């Protein structure tokens, strides 16, 4: 169990008619170092979870130097077996200066979310686009990964405790 992590400003918990709604404020994962990468800025991602529905919504923003519409995401540890493999829904694409910004969405089960943040090493996020046959990769350094994963583990622990209290 993760202890000792300050979560102020990291998440929000709200009452909802169907239960408790959790929102993890936007976090960042740097682009993996690669000269040919079209990724310009860090990946921005946030999570929303309603405890009665058991599915976690992951929203992400990619910032690239050329038009890139990701249609699938693979999150894997050590480039081996994927932890999560999903098709993505595009919310919108826009330009900001010379960059292209794509906002995408996917869902995962609560257990998959727990498995993701139980990884010992920083997982790699790989976005692919069939249209352009391109891929874009993001990965945290190990030090940041340990810090962030502990925060997520603490929130997941909190969610489990609230679910138990709700069922009593």
């Amino acid at each position, binding site marked *: 169990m993760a202890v000792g992590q300050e979560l102020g*400003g990291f998440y*929000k918990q*709200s009452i*909802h*008619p*169907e239960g408790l*709604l959790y*929102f993890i*404020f*936007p976090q960042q994962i740097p682009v993996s170092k690669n000269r040919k990468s079209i990724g310009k800025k860090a990946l921005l991602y*946030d999570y*929303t979870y*309603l405890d009665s*529905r058991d599915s976690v*919504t992951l*929203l992400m*923003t990619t910032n690239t130097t050329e038009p890139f519409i990701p249609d699938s995401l693979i999150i894997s540890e050590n480039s081996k077996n994927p932890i999560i493999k999903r098709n993505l829904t595009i*919310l*919108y694409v826009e330009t900001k200066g010379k960059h292209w910004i794509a*906002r995408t*969405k996917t869902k995962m089960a609560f257990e998959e979310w727990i498995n993701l943040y139980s990884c010992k090493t920083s997982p790699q996020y790989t976005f692919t686009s069939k249209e352009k046959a391109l891929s874009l990769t993001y990965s945290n350094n190990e030090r940041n990964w340990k810090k962030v994963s502990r925060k997520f583990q603490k929130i997941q622990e909190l969610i489990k405790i609230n679910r138990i209290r709700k069922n009593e």
Partner: protein
Amino acid sequence: MKLFFASVATIAMTSCATMSTPAGFGSIYADIKTGEHVTSNDCGTKVGTASATNILGLVLLGDASINAAAKSAGIKKISHVDSEKKSILGIFATYKVIVYGE
């Protein structure tokens, strides 16, 4: 003399990055969350945020509009809007809008 002018400039610029809140000004430090708007729409399951920053009251950057926050989560019907305001010594401040909806 240079130190004197630098001190005067610093003092003059403090509190330039402060924000008014329902609880008043926080000249030294502010970290406050407030409600902004409520609609008659049902409480949604989607949450979106957008933020803007203020540096020394000289540089203001960002898009903290309700539209930007709603767009970031694909919200088409807004149920309510909250905000979070933070400022440190009037030097650096952020304003964050949090939109809930469906």
